[in-house]
Each structure stands twice: as structure tokens, then as C-alpha cells.
């Protein structure tokens, strides 16, 4: 019965969404939402993606996904023992989300008259990456609602092998999806926004990082959950991940944070979402504390894989608390002391970097646990001490970042060698996704440090034909042309970069959109594995010269590659157990 209703719910929502999408494709501007986010001139692909370009549509899409995952969960998971409670929990969430949708953000409101044209889709969103980034992010959020419902079901009916299997599947899928969403957002920020970076420690970014960190800890805590190691901790993380994802949407939608990306702020929406968050938080944490005593948890042995896992979870939660504090502190001071402030990026990077090193040290310890336990333990400890004293003498003159780079590079080499040795001696790698995942995290850390340490930026003024020498390469502004497109006019600047006889061309654009006159820049980027040349066109001066921001960014490609490897590891680790 429950499963049939969930299919019915999904079908009805699907029809509603199809109806709205149809209005977009038909240019029916009598719908206020279509009027505000689309126009005649928009390419068909963006007419479709305009559906989720603003608050109302994106929330509707999120509800569709939630309903969809409810239906899929009923399809895959047929255990009578848990499914009723799981369904009830999701239905409860769905009910409140739909109330929110209907009363504060209805996308189906219409005008009495039919406007001739819409006000166009926000130009910055006219980008393939950003067209898919929001749906992926919402999917990641709502999948965590499913893990939440399963954890709640477990609290009532007890945890069992079957439940763990399903929990692991959903936790893996959510984790993968959320990671993909963050990666897409980063790539978009780098290529489209022209800010020259991929992560800014901006509140809106941090808010997505919170459920991601909790989800990472959660997925790891599930590994040994069947042995009832820290079972109640796992439950707590499952609940927190979901709560943090609601908190995220509340903070982003209510606009109480002082962010560069400020979304439509509507106090009534904020209050509704905050009450919703409070309701879920009280209900689920209340339930957790009343039931968790019943979950018998075991403590792991000292120096065991489980023990390292506990340490990993502690470090992840500490990182989470640091991000949480840094992101919400400005709200506290504004509400209680009426003092507006923001927390600089150094707060985050200076605190989190050492903790990431600790995580990497844990990866290493996990690989060499056998030695730590066996009789060779003393030999190993002595050799580590000798090595570190030697290293300390050698590197005491280097700065901390170089030190970090050396440490991470060493960890990378050691892990890689270890995996290769295992592969060639046994023709197989045990728990491949773990090795690959950890390797890619180490590579990612290395690339981020490289980028942070070596990247350079310069602002210059150039006329067509002018050259500038910077950091061992010559940048030349070749030409500037004006071109016209369907819905925008653009100034196209061609550059060339000459480094050791290797010539690369870059094209940077500045677009003026016909509706609203919004100006955006298309960044000119030429990438290689090690470094990127990055040019943003600025303003035109009276004498015909242009201001230009020219950057050389290190390790960007490596950041994308390691993130994609990480995604593969997550996906493989998730589906491997299930034989799909």
C-alpha cells in the first residue's frame, strides 16, 4: 500500500513539473515564474534549465527528487520490518516541503495579461555546468533524507544486516552526488565567474561543506557498523547530516548570511524553514537520546582499523565544527551585538590544513597497521623517529607550506608504492576503492597546496599588439573584435602566451546581454597538467587599451583529476557490494 502511494505521489509531481517545463518551452510568459526567468531569445536548452534557475522551480525540483527517491527506495527495499517507518519519515518531510512550496513559493502563479517577452535567464546561469549543478546538489540533499529515514527506522526496529546494506547504498549514493555537486560548483566558479579560484570559503560554499563533512564521517562510520562498533555514533551522524542539509537550505534561502552570493531573501521563507529545521531537530534528536541507550555499542581495540576509523571520525567532526563556527559566528554577532563582520579565508585554511595532514597520516597508519601491531613495532617506531629527526634537521629552514608539500608528496609516493607492491605480488588489490579514494584525497591535498603556494596574479593595461612579460612567460593581446549573438553582443579578445617557444592562444570575452544589459565575462583559459594561464577582460579605457587580470594558476587540472578519481572510488565502493 505504502509503496503504491509513493509511486502515485511521484507520478503526480512529475506531471506538475512537466507542466511547468512545458510552459517554459512554449514561452508562456503569463506565468510569473516563466516571465522572470526566461525569454524568447533564449536557446532551447536554457529554456529548459531555467526551470530550476530560481527559488520556486528549484524547490519544486528538490521535492520531485525527494518523492522520486522515496519511490526508488520502495522499489529496492522491500523489508517489511523497516519500510513503513522509513516511508512515514519521508512522507512527513515531503508534507512540510509541499506546504512550504504551496504557501511561500508557488511557481504556478499567473498574470492577468500576457507579456510579450520575459526578463531573460540570468546570464551567469547560461552555462551548461551551472545548468546541471543545482539539480545534482538537490539530489545530494534529498538522498540524505532517505538515509535519515532508514536510521530512524533502525532506531525503532533495531539495526540488522539488511538495513545496513540499504543504508550503505544510500549513504554512498548521497555522498557521491553531493561531492559531484560541489565539484561542478567549483568548476563553474573557476571557468565562468572569472574570480580565478575554485573555493572562496564563502558562507554559501561552507554551508554545503557541512553536510558533506558529516556525510563523509557517516559513510566511514558505516564500514564497521555491523560489528556494532559505535553504533549510536553512526546514528547520530546520520541524523546530523540530514539536519545540516536542511540548515543549509534555510541559511541560503533566508539571506541572513553576508555572502557574495545572496539569494532572494524573503523573511517568511526563512522563518518557515527555520521552524522546519527546529521541528526535525527536536523530533529526531529527542528520539535519538531516548532510544540510543538501547543501541549496544562496542568500543574498538587500541591500534586497530576500527580505532583509526574512530580517530578519522573525530578529525572530520572537528573540521566540521571549525567550519560551522566560522560560518555562523557572523550571524551570532549580528543578531546579538548588531556588529556586521566576516571571517577571512585564513581562519579556515590555517586551521583545516593541519587536520587534513592528520587525516593523511591516518591513511598511512591504516596501510601499515600490520607493522604497528607485530613484533616489528619497535623497529618501526625507532625508524620513524630517526627519519623525522633527520627530516627536521634538513627542513627546519623551509617554510611550513613547503614542509606540507613534502609530507603530502611522501605520503602519496608511499601509498602508491604500497598499492603497486600489493598488486604485483598478489595480482589484486584488496578494497580497491579505499586505496583509490585515499590516494585521490592525498593528490587533491597536494594540488591544493601547490595552487595556494605558487599561483600568481597581475592586473595590467594592454592595447592590441602589446606584450607583457610575467613569471617567465609572455602574454600578448593579439586582437579585439566585436561579435553579435542571438541574445547577447560580445567583445572578443584573443591573447597568446609564449613560454619557451610554446605558443598558446586564449580567448576571453565580455558579453552584454540584450535584455537587462547585464555584463558578464568569459574567462580565457589555457590549461596543462601543471599550470593554467587565465585571462579576464576588464574595462576599456579612453585611449583604446583594456584592463586585464592575468593569472598563472598551478595545479588546477590536478585538482579536477583527483576529484574525478575520488568520485570513481566513491561510486565503485558503493555499487561493488551490491553486485549491480
Amino acid at each position, binding site marked *: 500500500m505504502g509503496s503504491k502511494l509513493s509511486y502515485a505521489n511521484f507520478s503526480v509531481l512529475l506531471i506538475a513539473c512537466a507542466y511547468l517545463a512545458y510552459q517554459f518551452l512554449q514561452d508562456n510568459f503569463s506565468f510569473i515564474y516563466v516571465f522572470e526567468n526566461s525569454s524568447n531569445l533564449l536557446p532551447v536548452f536554457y529554456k529548459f534549465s531555467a526551470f530550476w534557475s530560481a*527559488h520556486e522551480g528549484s524547490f519544486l525540483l528538490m521535492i520531485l527528487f525527494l518523492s522520486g527517491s522515496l519511490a526508488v527506495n520502495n522499489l529496492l527495499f522491500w523489508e517489511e520490518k523497516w519500510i513503513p517507518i522509513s516511508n512515514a519519515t519521508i512522507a512527513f518531510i515531503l508534507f512540510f516541503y509541499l506546504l512550504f512550496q504551496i504557501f511561500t513559493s508557488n511557481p504556478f502563479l499567473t498574470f492577468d495579461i500576457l507579456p510579450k517577452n520575459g526578463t531573460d535567464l540570468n546570464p551567469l546561469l547560461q552555462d551548461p555546468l551551472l545548468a546541471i549543478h543545482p539539480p545534482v546538489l538537490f539530489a545530494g540533499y534529498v538522498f540524505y533524507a532517505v538515509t535519515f529515514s532508514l536510521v530512524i527506522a533502525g532506531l525503532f526496529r533495531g539495526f540488522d544486516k539488511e538495513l545496513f546494506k540499504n543504508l550503505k547504498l544510500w549513504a554512498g549514493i548521497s555522498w557521491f552526488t553531493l561531492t559531484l555537486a560541489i565539484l561542478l560548483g567549483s568548476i563553474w566558479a573557476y571557468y565562468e565567474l572569472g574570480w580565478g579560484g575554485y573555493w572562496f570559503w564563502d558562507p554559501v560554499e561552507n554551508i554545503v561543506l557541512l553536510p558533506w563533512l558529516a556525510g563523509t564521517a557517516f559513510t566511514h562510520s558505516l564500514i564497521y557498523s555491523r560489528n556494532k562498533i559505535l553504533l549510536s555514533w553512526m546514528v547520530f551522524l546520520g541524523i546530523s547530516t540530514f539536519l545540516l542539509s536542511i540548515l543549509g537550505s534555510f541559511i541560503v534561502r533566508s539571506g541572513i548570511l553576508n555572502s557574495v552570493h545572496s*539569494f532572494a531573501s524573503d523573511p517568511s521563507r526563512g522563518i518557515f524553514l527555520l521552524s522546519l529545521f527546529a521541528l526535525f531537530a527536536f523530533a529526531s534528536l529527542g528520539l535519538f537520546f531516548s532510544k540510543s541507550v538501547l543501541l549496544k555499542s562496542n*568500543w574498538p581495540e587500541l591500534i586497530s582499523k576500527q580505532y583509526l576509523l574512530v580517530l578519522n571520525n573525530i578529525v572530520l567532526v572537528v573540521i566540521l565544527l571549525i567550519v560551522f563556527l566560522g560560518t555562523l559566528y557572523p550571524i551570532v554577532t549580528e543578531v546579538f551585538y548588531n556588529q*556586521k563582520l*566576516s571571517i*577571512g579565508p585564513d581562519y579556515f585554511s590555517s586551521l583545516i590544513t593541519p587536520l587534513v595532514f592528520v587525516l593523511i597520516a591516518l591513511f598511512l597508519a591504516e596501510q601499515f597497521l600490520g607493522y604497528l601491531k607485530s613484533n616489528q613495532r619497535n623497529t618501526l617506531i625507532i625508524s620513524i623517529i630517526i627519519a623525522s629527526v633527520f627530516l627536521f634537521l634538513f627542513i627546519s629552514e623551509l617554510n611550513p607550506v613547503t614542509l606540507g608539500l613534502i609530507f603530502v608528496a611522501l605520503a602519496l609516493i608511499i601509498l602508491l608504492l604500497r598499492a603497486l607492491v600489493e598488486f604485483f605480488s598478489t595480482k589484486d588489490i584488496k578494497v580497491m576503492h579505499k586505496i583509490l579514494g585515499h590516494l585521490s584525497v592525498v593528490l587533491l591535498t597536494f594540488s591544493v597546496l601547490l595552487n595556494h603556494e605558487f599561483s600568481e596574479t597581475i*592586473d595590467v593595461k594592454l592595447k592590441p599588439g602589446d606584450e607583457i612579460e610575467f613569471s617567465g612567460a609572455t602574454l600578448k593581446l593579439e586582437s579585439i573584435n566585436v561579435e553579435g549573438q542571438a541574445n547577447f553582443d560580445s567583445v572578443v579578445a584573443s591573447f597568446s602566451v609564449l613560454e619557451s617557444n610554446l605558443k598558446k592562444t586564449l580567448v576571453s570575452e565580455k558579453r552584454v546581454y540584450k535584455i537587462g544589459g547585464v555584463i558578464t565575462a568569459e574567462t580565457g583559459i589555457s590549461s596543462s597538467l601543471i599550470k593554467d594561464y587565465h585571462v579576464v577582460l*576588464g574595462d576599456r579605457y579612453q585611449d583604446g587599451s583594456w584592463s586585464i*587580470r592575468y593569472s598563472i594558476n598551478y595545479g588546477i587540472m590536478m585538482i579536477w583529476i583527483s576529484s574525478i578519481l575520488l568520485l570513481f572510488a566513491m561510486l565503485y565502493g558503493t555499487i561493488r557490494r551490491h553486485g549491480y
Partner: protein
Amino acid sequence: MIRKNRLNRIYLIAFFLLSLGAITFFVLRALENNIDLYLTPTEVKAQQIQELEDFKLGGMVKENSVEMLEELNVSFVVTDFENEISVIYKGVLPNLFKENSGVVASGFLEENKFIAYEILAKHDENYMPVKLEVSD
């Protein structure tokens, strides 16, 4: 067996408390070092000072105040409709920077002028420059 388990717990708790202390110390120190105040021209003027170290100045770019100077220097006036402060910035301005729309500049106050090293133009959900509300 029980004893060993209990010893584990003691280790874990001691380790946990120690790290908690260390982390709290570092977090508070980092927080203290990285706070950027966000001030409007009126709040700056209220302090009656000529110089002020790193802070963020927020307000609207005053109409007809943007001037391109030699090199890459730009000067403009940030206003909150009560007081105004002139800003000097060297570099490329962001795309969303416009007269009559919101801006956040990071920098310092020197001889009553704000020397900015970073300019951010705010964008809202529709990625248009934000019009600041007139504060009363």
C-alpha cells in the same frame, strides 16, 4: 578483558580532552586574527578617525563618482545616503561593479581615504548587482 577495554577508554578520553583543549585554543586564536569588520561610511565617520587598519567597507557606488585614473587606478565614492567615503583601488573591477549598486571593498583607511585591495560587487539570486536598502 574488561580491564583492557577500560584502559582503552581512558586513553581515548584523555586523548580526546587534550586535543579538545588544543583545538579550542587554536580555533579561538584563528578566529580573533581573521575577523574583518564590515562597516558602512556612517559607522566609519562615527569613530572620528583618519586611519583604520583592515576592514570591509560596504555601501553603494555613488552616481557619477567613478573615475578612471592613470595606470589601473580607479577612484569612486561609497555612500550609504548619509555619509560617504572616497575609495581608491588599483586593479581590474569585477563585472558586476556598477554605479548605484552595492559594493564591498576590503582595505584600510588612510588620511580619510579608503585604499582598497579587493573589490567585490554583490550579486543576488538573479546575479544582478544588489541595490542596497536605505538604512534608517
